[in-house]
């Protein structure tokens, strides 16, 4: 029964089978596209349009608060984020130990991330109160000396904002690094043990090469997000004293509260040359994996 060379009639019917799936795809994608157009694309374009005046930038650069803010932001990003990640790297090594009580502790350890920012930051704020706060009262009881005026000193205030940021965000990044460490096959450690590796050598030759990329990606992502961390500074110091602890996130909002929206947008536009490369790097990383 060899195939007979009578061709089937050409079929003129349109390819409606596939197109109905495509049509539904477009319909189901539309809600998000609308959200994006209306609440991201339009606002951002409008904002950039507002930031078009050269005068905004002149005023901005003349504002002494702005220069201080840029320095604060850079210090906050470099110090707080890196300190947070070194701690997270260390703690993730602690939490991968298989003990029932460590598992219990890890549940408690997550609390700062699981609860909203305001209550805990306010709590820390009062703890740092120079007259009635629990910190200074403990210092007094132990040493008989008055503790520092934590939030009225710009350097201490910004440091404490960094501490608040670390307190709040550390659990999340530790969790990420724990996941990274748990993904390393146990055989690699067993092989290293058989080869006589010490704890430090195991970290250097097994753990670190496996989680290096994750560590780097997470650090960059965290830097982008920390740039937008409004709460840690605003709820703790409010930008004070004398507007000396502002970061870019709080400065932009400060201008809005002063009804200077052009100025607020200019602040953000100034930061874009630093943010966009990081965003581009992250986009590359995430879509390269697909």
């Amino acid at each position: 029964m060899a195939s007979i060379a009578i061709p089937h009639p050409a079929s003129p019917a349109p390819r409606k089978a596939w197109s109905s799936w495509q049509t539904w795809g477009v319909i189901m994608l539309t809600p998000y596209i609308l959200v994006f157009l209306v609440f991201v694309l339009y606002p951002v374009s409008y904002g950039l349009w507002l930031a078009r005046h050269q005068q905004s930038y002149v005023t901005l650069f003349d504002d002494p608060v702005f220069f201080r803010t840029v320095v604060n932001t850079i210090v906050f990003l470099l110090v707080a984020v890196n300190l947070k990640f070194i701690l997270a790297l260390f703690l993730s090594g602690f939490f991968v130990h298989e003990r029932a009580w460590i598992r219990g502790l890890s549940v408690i350890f997550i609390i700062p991330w699981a609860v909203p920012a305001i209550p805990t930051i306010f709590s820390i704020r009062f703890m740092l109160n120079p007259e009635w706060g629990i910190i200074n009262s403990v210092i007094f009881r132990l040493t008989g000396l008055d503790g520092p005026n934590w939030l009225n000193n710009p350097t201490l205030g910004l440091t404490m904002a960094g501490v608040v940021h670390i307190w709040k965000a550390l659990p999340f990044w530790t969790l990420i690094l724990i996941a990274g460490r748990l993904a390393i096959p146990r055989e690699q450690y067993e092989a290293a043990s058989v080869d006589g590796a010490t704890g430090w050598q195991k970290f250097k030759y097994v753990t670190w090469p496996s989680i290096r990329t994750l560590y780097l990606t997470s650090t960059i992502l965290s830097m982008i997000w920390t740039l937008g961390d409004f709460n840690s500074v605003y709820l703790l110091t409010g930008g004070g004293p004398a507007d000396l602890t502002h970061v870019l996130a709080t400065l932009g909002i400060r201008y809005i509260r002063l009804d200077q929206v052009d100025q607020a947008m200019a602040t953000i536009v100034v930061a874009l040359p630093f943010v966009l490369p990081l965003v581009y790097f992250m986009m590359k990383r995430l879509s390269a994996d697909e």
Partner: protein
Amino acid sequence: MAAVSFRDIRKSFGKTPVLHGISLDIANGEFMVLVGPSGCGKSTLLRMLAGLEDITGGSIAIEERVVNDVDSKDRDIAMVFQSYALYPHMTVRENMGFSLKLRKEKQALIDQRVAAAARILNLEPFLERQPRQLSGGQRQRVAMGRAIVRDPKVFLFDEPLSNLDAKLRVAMRAEIKALHQRLKTTTVYVTHDQVEAMTMADRIAVMHDGRIEQLGEPLELYDRPANLFVAQFIGSPAMNVFDGVFQGNSVQALGARWPTSARAAEGQRVKYGIRPEHLEPASSGAEGKIAAEVVVVEPMGAETELLVKIGETPLTVMTRGRSNAGPGERIFLAPQASHAHLFDAAGGQRL
């Protein structure tokens, strides 16, 4: 009347062509197996028949109706997937009745059809279970049950036994074949396993590089392979093939004269092919015997496989019963002339 016919089917993924004009007619009630190594295009061809892949060129007809632009659900086919593709959140009963439910059939009819299929496949005790509570073989049967319930014109199987262990595979092979003999539904079955193809098919299409190398009944392919590819693909262990020159009524190769009843031009360069079971050990006194050195002995009980070499060329020999030869020993082989195959040395076509 052909149940399924392919006419000059072409398929490209982007610029890469994977099917180069396949034409094939499958008769009503026939069990057709598409077999070939991975990447030969057999699954693509099946998926085009199922309506899961676009057709680049040519046409496909089911019972004389061109279905190129017909949606899968309107082609009246049912398919069993390699991974079974059972809906994990539905019970066996719901899985099997899903297609009828989508067609808005009456519940009484759905129940009746599911019950009938479950009886055929011995799935009655499992109807209320979920797929993850079933063994691999049971899941396989549910996948078939889902196909049966629809009472389609054509069953499509895409490597349905690949995920089962060896023992279960043999059992399911027989079950699928028995099912086909009972239902007599036209079946297109894709596999890379030539044993499955040989044991189950009414006819086999051997595919390679997007073309059908040979189409025929299992033993026809075994006895008269059309070319070197089919000769070496069909049969296990594989056919021995080596280069030689046709002289007189035999082939001069590996320093010996190999008898054949096939004919070629005097002095023509040929490939000489002989299956392991047609290369029996002979006594030292036999006529036309060929000496070989034993390398490995693999006793399998009913038969014994010997790996031997002549010079540096390895050959496989299959003998019934036991063999008392040991590694390193010299034995003598007697090729059966009537079962020797000759292929053109350049094109690989059968002579």
